[in-house]
C-alpha cells in the first residue's frame, strides 16, 4: 500500500507441515560466530564434559551474544571452520552422549528491572531469528533510555519457501503472545502490532483469536509483497513511522522483533533454557519431502537433508535462508547456526547450457524495472554506474546506504545484472577511506 515492492511466487510448500523433531545427531559443531557481531571465544577445551545449556562461548563485545552447548557430551575438538565469505571461525565440536543432561546453569532468570531483563536476554544467547541475526539485547538496550511507543512483531515472512515463522505462530502462538507481553511489560511499551502477510490467513486467524482479550495487541494483515518483512518496511507498514538512514527503529520509538524471537524469549523467561534449538524449513528442488524441522544448533546440514529425503549427490546449491537474501554454503557438512530460518537445497538445472545462456549478464537497457522494484526508491542502475566509476560522492548522493540487499533489483533485471551485489560492494567502498573518491 505504502511502498512498492515486487511480487514473488509463494512456493510455501510447507505451510501446513507440522514441525518434526530431528533425532539427536552423533556430533554437533557449534560455531563461535552465530550471529551478526563479534565472534565469541570458546570457554571450554578439548576433553571437557559439557551439558545442555552450558555457556561455551563468550565475548565482552557489546554487539554479540553468548553461545551455549546444545547437547550434553564431550568436547572432542576446538576446530577452525572456513566460512563461505572467506573468513575462518572457531568451532567447538561436541560428541553427544545422547543423555541430554541439562546443566545447572539453566534456571529461570530473576527479573526486577529493565536492566535485568536486557541482561537476561543477552545471557540467553538470543539473536533475531528472522534471518539477519542482530543480537536481540542490543536492540532492546537501544530502548533503555527512550520512550518506546510500539512493539512490532514481524510475522511477514515475505521470502519464498520459508514457513518457520508461520509454524511458530500456529504451533506456539501462546508463547509468542506471552513473550510479546513480557517485552511490553519490562520496557513499558504501551502497544504491540503483529504484522502478518495476507498469504497466511490461518496464522492471522490464530493470532486474532489469541489476542481477542488483549486490547493493547493488534494483528495487522499486510499486503503480500516482497520485501514486506524488512525492518524499515514493516515499521512503516504497521505504524507509519519512517526510520531514516543509519537509524534504529528504537530511535523512533519502535522495536521490531521476529515472532519466533518473541516465542523464544517467553520460553527462556519460563525455563531458563538458552537458545540451543530452533525450527527451520527444509525445502528446495533437491528435497523430496519438504518439511519443518526442529533441531539443536550445530547439527550438520547433511542430517537435516537426509531426514528430508534429499540425495546429497544431486545438491548443486545449498542456501541458509531464503532464495532472495539467503547465504550460500559451500559444503553439505556445514553446521546449523542460530539465524538459519531455512535450509534450501537446489539441484543443478537440467539444461545447463540454456541456464547459463539465460543468466548471462548483458548490457543495461535502461528499462527502469530496478527503479520501480526498489522498496527504498533507490536507482540501482545509477548506483551500479557510480560504483563502476568508484564515484563515492555520487554513491552518497544516491543514498546507497539505504540499500538493505533485498535483491529485488537483481530479481527483475531483464539483463540479469547483479545489481544487489554491486550495491553491497558500493556500501563497502563508501566506508573505505583510502579510495579517495573526490571526483
Amino acid at each position, binding site marked *: 500500500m*505504502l511502498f512498492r515492492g515486487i511480487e514473488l511466487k509463494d512456493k510455501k510448500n510447507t505451510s501446513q507441515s507440522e514441525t518434526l523433531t530431528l533425532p539427536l545427531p552423533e556430533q554437533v559443531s557449534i560455531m563461535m560466530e552465530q550471529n551478526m557481531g563479534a565472534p565469541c571465544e570458546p570457554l571450554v577445551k578439548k576433553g571437557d564434559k559439557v551439558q545442555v545449556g552450558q555457556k561455551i562461548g563468550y565475548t565482552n563485545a557489546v554487539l554479540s551474544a553468548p553461545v551455549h552447548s546444545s547437547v550434553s557430551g564431550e568436547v572432542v575438538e576446538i576446530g577452525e571452520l572456513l566460512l563461505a565469505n572467506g573468513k575462518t571461525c572457531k568451532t567447538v565440536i561436541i560428541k553427544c552422549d545422547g543423555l541430554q543432561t541439562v546443566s545447572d546453569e539453566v534456571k529461570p532468570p530473576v527479573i526486577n528491572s529493565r536492566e535485568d531483563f536486557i541482561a537476561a536476554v543477552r545471557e540467553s544467547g538470543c539473536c533475531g531469528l528472522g534471518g539477519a541475526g542482530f543480537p536481540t539485547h542490543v536492540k532492546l538496550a537501544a530502548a533503555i533510555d527512550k520512550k518506546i511507543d510500539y512493539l512490532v512483531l514481524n510475522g511477514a515472512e515475505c521470502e519464498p519457501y520459508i514457513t518457520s515463522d508461520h509454524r511458530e505462530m500456529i504451533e506456539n502462538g501462546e508463547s509468542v503472545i506471552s513473550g510479546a507481553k513480557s517485552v511490553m511489560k519490562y520496557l513499558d511499551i504501551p502497544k504491540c502490532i503483529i504484522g502478518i502477510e495476507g498469504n497466511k490467513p490461518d496464522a492471522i486467524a490464530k493470532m486474532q483469536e489469541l489476542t481477542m482479550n488483549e486490547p493493547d495487541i493488534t494483528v495487522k494483515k499486510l499486503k503480500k509483497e516482497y520485501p514486506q518483512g524488512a525492518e524499515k518496511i514493516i515499521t*512503516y507498514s504497521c505504524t507509519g513511522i519512517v526510520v531514516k538512514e543509519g537509524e534504529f527503529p528504537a530511535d523512533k520509538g519502535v522495536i521490531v522483533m521476529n515472532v519466533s524471537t518473541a516465542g523464544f524469549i517467553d520460553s527462556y523467561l519460563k525455563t531458563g533454557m538458552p537458545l540451543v534449538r530452533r525450527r527451520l524449513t527444509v525445502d528446495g528442488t533437491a528435497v523430496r519431502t519438504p518439511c519443518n524441522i526442529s533441531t539443536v544448533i550445530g547439527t550438520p546440514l547433511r542430517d537435516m537433508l537426509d531426514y528430508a529425503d534429499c540425495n546429497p549427490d544431486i545438491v548443486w546449491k545449498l542456501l541458509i535462508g531464503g532464495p*532472495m537474501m539467503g547465504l*550460500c554454503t559451500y559444503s553439505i557438512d556445514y553446521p546449523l547456526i542460530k539465524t538459519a530460518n531455512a535450509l534450501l537445497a*537446489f539441484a543443478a538445472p537440467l539444461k545447463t547450457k540454456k541456464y547459463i545462456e539465460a*543468466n548471462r549478464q548483458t548490457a543495461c*537497457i535502461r528499462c527502469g524495472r530496478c527503479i520501480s522494484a526498489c522498496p527504498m526508491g533507490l*536507482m540501482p542502475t545509477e548506483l551500479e554506474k557510480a560504483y563502476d566509476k568508484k564515484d563515492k560522492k555520487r554513491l552518497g548522493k544516491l543514498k546507497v546506504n539505504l540499500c538493505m540487499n533485498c535483491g529485488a533489483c*537483481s*530479481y527483475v533485471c531483464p539483463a540479469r545484472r547483479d545489481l544487489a551485489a554491486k550495491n553491497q560492494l558500493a556500501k563497502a567502498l563508501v566506508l573505505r577511506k583510502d579510495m579517495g573518491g573526490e571526483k
Partner: protein
Amino acid sequence: MENLTVTASPHERGDVSTAKIMTDVIIALIPAMLASGFIFGGRALMLTGFCMISAMGLERICNFVMKRESSVSDLSAAVTGMLLAFNLPVTISYFKAFLGVFVAIVVAKQLFGGLGHNFANPAIVGRIVLLLSFPAAMSNWAVPFYDDKAIETGATPLAVEAFSYKQLFLGTVGGSLGETCKAALLIGALYLIAKKIIIPAAPIAFVGTVYLFSMITGRDGLYQILSGGLILGAFFMATDYVTTPITVPGKIIFGIGCGVLTCVIRFYASNPEGVSYAILLMNIATPLIDMATVKRTPLAKKIIKQTAAEETK
C-alpha cells in the same frame, strides 16, 4: 560433495529478459505490419523483412569485427530494422533501405557501444539520414491499394488536409509503411501496456501536447494526432528504453518536449512532418532530464525529506 556453487544473493531471478521484451515489441508491431501489407501490397512486407534481416546481419558482422559477444539473439536489431522499415515509403529501393539500416545499426548503435549505449534511437537516425540524403525518394508516397504495375503517388495527409478521420484511423491514406494504420498501431500499443513493457506516460504526454498545441493555435487537434507518424513515434519510439528518461516524471517531460517540437516543426518549419526530429532532439536531452528527475517511492521520499530537514537544523 565439497564443490557446491556459491553465488551472491538473490538466488532466484525473474523470468523477464531482454530478448522477451524485444519479442513482445515485435509482436506488438505485427498488426501494423499486416495492415501495411494490406494497404500497400506485398512489397511492404518484403521491405519490412528485408530491413529486419539486414539489421540482424549487420549487427552480427559488427559484433564479429568489434570482437564483441553476439547480440543478435536479444532481437533488438530486429526491432530496429522493423521500426526503420515502418518509417520508409513503400516505393523506396532496397539499396536505399539498406543504407538506412546501415546507418541505424552500424553508425547510430554499434559505433556507440551497442545496445544500451546508443544515445539516439537508431531507427530514427536511419530515417533522418535517408530523409536528408534522398528527399525525393523518401517522400514518394504511394497511394493505398495501388496497382503493382503502375505505382501512383499521392500526397500525405499532412501536406493536404483533405482526409476524413475514418480514413486516417484505418490508414487508407498515403504515408510511410507502418505509420498510416493507427488502429493497428494502437492495438500493438495496448498489448505493450497490458504486458507492462511500456508505461504510457511519454506517449500520453506526447499526444496530449500535440492536441493542446494544435487547439491553441487554431488547428484541428484530432487531425494532427491521426496524421503522420505521431502514433508510431509516440508509442514505439518515444518509449524506447535506452534513449528516453528512466523515471516517470522524466518520461512526461520527454513526451511534452516531443509534442512541442513536433508541432513547431509541423506548423512553422519547412518540413511537413516533425515527429522524428522531435524525438531525436529529445533523445539528446535525455541525460539532462535524467539528471534533473529522481524517482522516489513515498517511503524513500519521507526518509530523505526528514534527513534533509534535520541536516538544516
